[in-house]
């Protein structure tokens, strides 16, 4: 099952990231995980937050914000865990567009967030490999 990620288009200049984060903070929304892709001119801030609707609403007045469906896969905190995930996807010829990871509240486990070119297929493949993916509801529960 996919989860909701917010992507925010940011100008690559001092203070823009801080301002976006402040807006989220003022809205009382917690950031679970984030990654920032940047180029010389612009950045794309990707966020997993406690309340995506609320964060999107408050950010929208100042930023271009879009929802993206990404996969959050649970992995054990041990050597080879990420490799298993990527192997499964590679076998099914699914392309990973970007990824980032975060550790959850449970000990010895982490989550990797993946944006893939074929979401449905990726979910099936991961399930078949015995890997656990998160839903928005589950995400809320564990963090």
């Amino acid at each position, binding site marked *: 099952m996919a989860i909701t*990620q917010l992507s925010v288009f*940011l100008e690559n200049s001092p203070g823009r990231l801080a301002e976006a984060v402040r807006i989220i903070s003022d809205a009382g929304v917690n950031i679970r995980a984030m990654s920032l892709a940047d180029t010389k001119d612009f950045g794309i801030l990707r966020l997993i937050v406690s309340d995506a609707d609320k964060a999107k609403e408050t950010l929208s007045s100042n930023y*271009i914000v879009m929802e993206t469906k990404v996969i959050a896969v649970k992995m054990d905190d041990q050597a080879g865990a990420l490799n298993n995930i990527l192997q499964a996807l590679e076998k099914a010829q699914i392309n990973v567009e970007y990824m980032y990871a975060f550790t959850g509240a449970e000990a010895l486990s982490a989550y990797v967030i993946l944006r893939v070119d074929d979401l449905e297929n990726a979910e099936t493949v991961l399930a078949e490999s015995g890997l656990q993916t998160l839903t928005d509801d589950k995400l809320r529960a564990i963090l």
Partner: protein
Amino acid sequence: MKNYYQKEIETAPREKILEIQNEKLRKQIRHVYDNVKYYRDLMDQKGVKPEDIRTVDDIKFLPFLSKADLRDAYPYGLLGTDLKNCVRIHSTSGTTGKRVVAFYTQNDIDIWEECCARAIVAAGGTAEDVCQVCYGYGLFTGGSGLHGGSHKVGCLTLPMSSGNTERQIQFMMDLGSTIICCTPSYAAYIGETLAEMGYKPEDNKLKAGIFGAEPWTEEMRRSIEKSLGIKAYDIYGLTETSGPGVSFECEEQTGMHINEDHFYAEIIDPDTGEVLPEGSKGELVFTALDKEAFPLIRYRTRDICTLSRKECSCGRTHVKMSKPMGRSDDMMIIRGVNVFPSQIETVLLKEGYTPNYQIVVDRERNNDTFDVYVELNPDQFSDKVSDIQNRERSLEAAMRTMLGIGPKMHLVAPKTITRSEGKAVRVIDRRKLHD
């Protein structure tokens, strides 16, 4: 019922217009020769006497005036009457760095306002209309010109001046403005703000807009028409010749009728000064036929356009000028290639981008750098960096096709390019600072 403010002259047969022009020209040249020493000297240098000028065909013998002459003669050197007969001045914005001060007698102002009234009526204006003038008031001619024209038509006039967009919108909504007059970039901004405030184009009562004072493209016209739910009319003029209203568009939207009973237009080759035949593209030159205070003869506008006498479905018989392709002042020479901002705007709008853009030209190690910044529309956003970079590359390719030279494109976040409430600052040419 066609929309004319002064039907008889606006639809007069060609011969009648010529007759008026010839008569006014003879009188004007005599008057200028006798009263404006600066121009008399130019005529003497060329060996032309007032009696040599019998018809508009003889105008080609007269010397040109350019912006440089206006600077040399600043402030009173081109005055055609005693200062005591003048009632007002206006001045150019100085966007090109050269400020011009123009003078007006009461009669000059009446004629100017009539010209603006013709434009308002051509756009469908009547005494029933509520005309919101959000051109700047003050030294700039935009506000006063349309304001006066609106009075002459009998519209309820809202002298808003430019700026304070939320207040503009509040008056527009509360008083039901039906006609709006401003620069096209400000109209685009008002449209954008209305949408942001949650208004749909049909929520306002506007039916027409009269936009001018800066170059704009056909694509920008369509975009403004859509965002405000109006028909957008072009108006042209320059402070040197009075202000807006030298020419204006009718409902055909295929060029602007020049008020030929007051202005005689020529198209010349900007390099040789030679008069070009009808339909040729070249520099627009105006002779004010009846201005008293600031009677410019053969003034070179630097605007590149064409003239057409093709019959117009609106019934007006006055010659039409095409939308200027850009002032030769606006033209940038980048790596040896002539580039007009209007060409860049055309590409951006055609590719679905906003008209919010800025061009930055600089020089690094003797090479010109050419960067164009444009705001991304929310629906063009993708959270993949490569998608956005592909957009930039494809815009660069489209620019290269149009211009013959490819700028580096930068997509930026909405609202990061400074909005203008008057004339938009489209070009930042830093090369001048180094010279």
